[in-house]
């Protein structure tokens, strides 16, 4: 069972080595002439104002929360989708109830305007 995952471990090691290696190599080869202006974040050449660690729209949080709810729904669909033959009509009815409950939630979210972007 475990040696099924051995290739993935080797792959992770090689991938990390590739990523780290190329960056380290470019550090060694590349030039280094830092200056205050060069290190400043890009803002079209104008003097900086404010901070980049600013607040942003609450919409994005809502999307992230909705994503978790609906992604769990998708994850619940997977076990059923491989086993549906054995579970038969009963499994499908159970899944249907589950989907309907979530669909009610979806309609609620829509009506509440959580999916609006103006």
């Amino acid at each position, binding site marked *: 069972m475990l040696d099924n995952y051995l290739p993935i471990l080797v792959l992770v090691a090689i991938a990390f080595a590739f990523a780290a290696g190329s960056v380290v190599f470019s550090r060694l080869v590349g030039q280094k002439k*830092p200056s205050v202006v060069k290190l400043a*974040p890009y803002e079209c050449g104008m003097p900086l104002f404010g901070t*980049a660690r600013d607040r942003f729209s609450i919409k994005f949080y809502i999307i992230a929360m909705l994503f978790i709810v609906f992604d769990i729904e998708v994850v619940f669909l997977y076990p059923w*989708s491989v086993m549906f033959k054995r579970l038969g009509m009963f499994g499908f009815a159970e899944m249907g109830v589950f989907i309907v409950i979530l669909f009610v939630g979806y309609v609620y979210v829509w009506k509440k305007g959580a999916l609006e972007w*103006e």
Partner: protein
Amino acid sequence: MNDILITLLIIIIKLGLIFAVVLTMAAYLVLAERKILARMQLRYGPNRVGPFGMFQPVADLIKMLTKEDVCPAGADKYLFLFAPGLAAVTALMSLAVVPFGPTIEIFGQQVPQVVCDLNIGVLYFLGLSSLAVYGIALGGWASNSKYALLASIRGLAQLISYELSMGLAVVPIIMAARSFSLTDIVMAQESLPFVLIYPETFLIFFVSVAAESKRIPFDLPEAENELVAGFHTEYSGMRFGLFFVGEYINMIILGSMTTIFFLGGWHGPLLPPIFWFLFKVLGVAFVFIWMRGTMPRFRYDQLMHFGWKVLMPIALLDVVVRGGFMVWSLGG
């Protein structure tokens, strides 16, 4: 002991081959994209370095390696250094489960043409595509730049939104193949590719995949005429290169997944299987490039509306209808 060594040797040879081929493919996909785009816009594209610009990727690599590696003032240094690596590593890791062809026999050993045929290959791919979001999120947030921050938040919301419909579109395929293993899914399409049986599922999946690839018309995280260069605005040199490589490897991965789930994987007449596989993957990649040459960019509200109010319900309905039909055809 000897067995373990042989297994390890096979793994390393396979990985070496795959890395070499995929990295070269990614590099030349960049050139192909520039060439094809140029032709679509009645330009020549890169044609100075070598015959027909064939050495352009090499020149680009040398340039990126020798550029200065700038880390902007006020950036979260470790996250800033870590993010591009993460983007490239997650893209490379998905390669582990891609089956390039059927099992072949070399020196009496059964060698499957896949790094490891996980019985949960689909979940592995979806999990990694979720992890790929971190590369953008961390990179943009750590840069201490307003453009990068805006782009990374946008990108985050976009990627997780379209991941839902992508996940839902895979469900009918799993039901038809009755397995999470990508090899089994390809095997199930021996007579007929799933695109012909599930055309609407294919459309849902393809649109979601296009959104996951962060390319036009879904390139909001990089929208160059509003956000400079999006989440990698502050990146330079090889770190930018890693983002870039990750993006193109991701394009190959998404092309492979479309091929595996819907286009019948390595199945095809006459030519050897691996050739068919590459041919189909490159075909999907060409469609991506074609879309970039043809379409305008979505507005952000349109993008979110489309993802949540159109694609999601359709994908859900598709699962219910297709699932119901498959259960019904069992005979109740």
